[in-house]
């Protein structure tokens, strides 16, 4: 891939997202929300890939950062009543940014003491962090505690969902595809050797963690203003696992693969649901002949993961590494 024109591609993607958002009212709302979910999944998976894939720091707390961003942005936008389109988007931008910064701060606070741990130990600590966030939110009366928090504005649209996905991809790809960014992969490959080669491994790890957390926070903001209702349970351990699965399925440290995996895994449950909703199929007498898929949807999903991991352990979409710049 040629990264010389990365900025042009980014601007193109943003313009495309803007155009798409103008025609959003012609799209079936059901699909519209799936598109938002895809955008959110891409932001989450690609940012987690910087931490888990490129830098090799196994984090299981990504949904925790998403929760921080979701609640922060929701609390901010809930201060406002009905606004015209410009004010709304302006406030939304500020709220997303604030959500990202709050999550980044959380990432910094968690990252500095814990990133000296490796592998399994780090995974457990980040898992603990995610749970702490969930429990704190569950007991915070100001944000509705376990009852949940209503978000007054449904400001997430195609522009924000895909614009943020594009920015995330741009930032992660630009970082990694630079002399500076090769340090992330060096840390992943051999931490001792990286340190001996003058790479400040702690700084690199914290940087990856903070940037990853920032984007998870903005994705949380998108999520809040798409679902318009937040519960602490929505950001549990299982959510984090879903994003980890996207990263592993896409191929650790492979941005294109991770994007495809994020799209696939967001569509898959919906697709299976649709199959089960088909009323008549030629050759079948019963109504909803594939109805059983609906009941066993999650089993099929899980089986699919097992089969994919057995047959493509390097990641579903693992491609050849891009050659050195000429």
């Amino acid at each position, binding site marked *: 891939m040629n990264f010389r024109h990365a900025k042009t591609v980014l601007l193109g993607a943003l313009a495309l997202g803007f155009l798409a958002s103008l025609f959003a009212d012609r799209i079936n709302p059901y699909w519209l929300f799936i598109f938002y979910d895809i955008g959110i999944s891409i932001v989450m998976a690609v940012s987690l890939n910087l931490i888990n894939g490129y830098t090799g720091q196994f984090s299981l707390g990504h949904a925790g950062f998403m929760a921080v961003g979701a609640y922060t942005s929701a609390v901010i936008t809930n201060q406002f009543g009905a606004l015209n389109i410009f004010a709304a988007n302006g406030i939304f931008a500020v709220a997303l940014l604030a959500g990202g910064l709050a999550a980044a701060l959380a990432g910094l606070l968690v990252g500095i003491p814990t990133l000296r741990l490796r592998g399994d130990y780090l995974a457990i600590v980040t898992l603990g962090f995610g749970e702490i966030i969930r429990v704190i939110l569950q007991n915070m009366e100001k944000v509705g505690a376990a009852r949940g928090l209503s978000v007054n504005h449904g400001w997430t649209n195609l522009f924000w969902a895909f614009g943020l996905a594009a920015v995330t991809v741009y*930032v992660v790809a630009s970082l990694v595809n*630079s*002399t500076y960014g090769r340090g992330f992969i060096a840390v992943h490959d051999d931490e001792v050797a*990286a340190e*001996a*080669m*003058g790479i400040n491994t702690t700084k690199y790890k914290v940087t990856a963690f903070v940037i990853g957390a920032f984007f998870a926070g903005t994705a949380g903001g998108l999520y809040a203003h798409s679902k318009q209702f937040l519960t602490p349970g929505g950001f549990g351990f299982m959510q984090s696992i879903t994003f980890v699965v996207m990263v592993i399925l896409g191929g650790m440290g492979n941005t294109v693969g991770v994007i495809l995996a994020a799209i696939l895994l967001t569509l898959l449950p919906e697709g299976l649901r649709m199959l089960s909703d088909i009323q008549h199929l030629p050759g079948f007498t019963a109504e909803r002949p594939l109805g059983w898929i609906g009941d066993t949807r999650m089993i099929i999903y899980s089986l699919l993961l097992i089969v994919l991991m057995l047959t493509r352990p390097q990641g579903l979409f693992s491609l050849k*590494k891009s050659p*050195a710049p000429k």
Partner: protein
Amino acid sequence: MSALLQLDKATIRFGGLTAVSELDLQIGRNELVGLIGPNGAGKTTAFNLITGVYQPTSGAINFDGLSTVGRKPYQITKRGIARTFQNIRLFPSLTAFDNVRAVFHLHLKGDVRHALWRGQGFHDEEKSIAERVLDLLEIFQLGKFRDEPAKSLSYGDQRRLEIVRALAAKPKLLLLDEPAAGMNATEKVELTRLIQFIKDKFQISILLVEHDMKVVMGICERIVVLDYGIKIAEGKPDEVRMNPKVIAAYLGE
């Protein structure tokens, strides 16, 4: 002129075990010094002391006029000490090119913002780094492997690549930890030529830890012998070879 590297009574203890005891060691500029000793003599520990992997229990270590005690390995590398490892430690998933390029971040003018903004300055800098990396690879006949992942290179090529990677840090002192390990006789001869070539071409000091007497005796100007963490001899290769203490340490009394 003062020595480039100076250890004064450097000592490290692990619990009750004194791995290196009161080691005095000087390395001058553009000097090639060998560090030898039987298995477990403390050679690699001495290496780890110099590179900051371990901190000395007592004693002083000065490099280029400044103390390295309390510094992290990456800070010491920035000051000009680069090393290779006894059991090769490349970045296996990175290409030969990127293994060397990753070290060039030491010489970057721009920082993260540079990489994110991707302006003309960034592209110019990346291009000049690419040229310098390829030059280095070519000098050591590794240019043809530039796009190969390091793990797919042959053993000898990996050893060479690890040395190239260390040189990319532009060190004043290069530490080689048993570079001849696992090599056959022909490869060892090539290696001694290579080490001599590096010293002359880059005008740097080299500290060579080695098991193989032939390699050490052939190229080192001065040899330091360790046994049980204590320096038992130091001098020119011929003097060391005849030293009864050294013979006893290697062959037994």
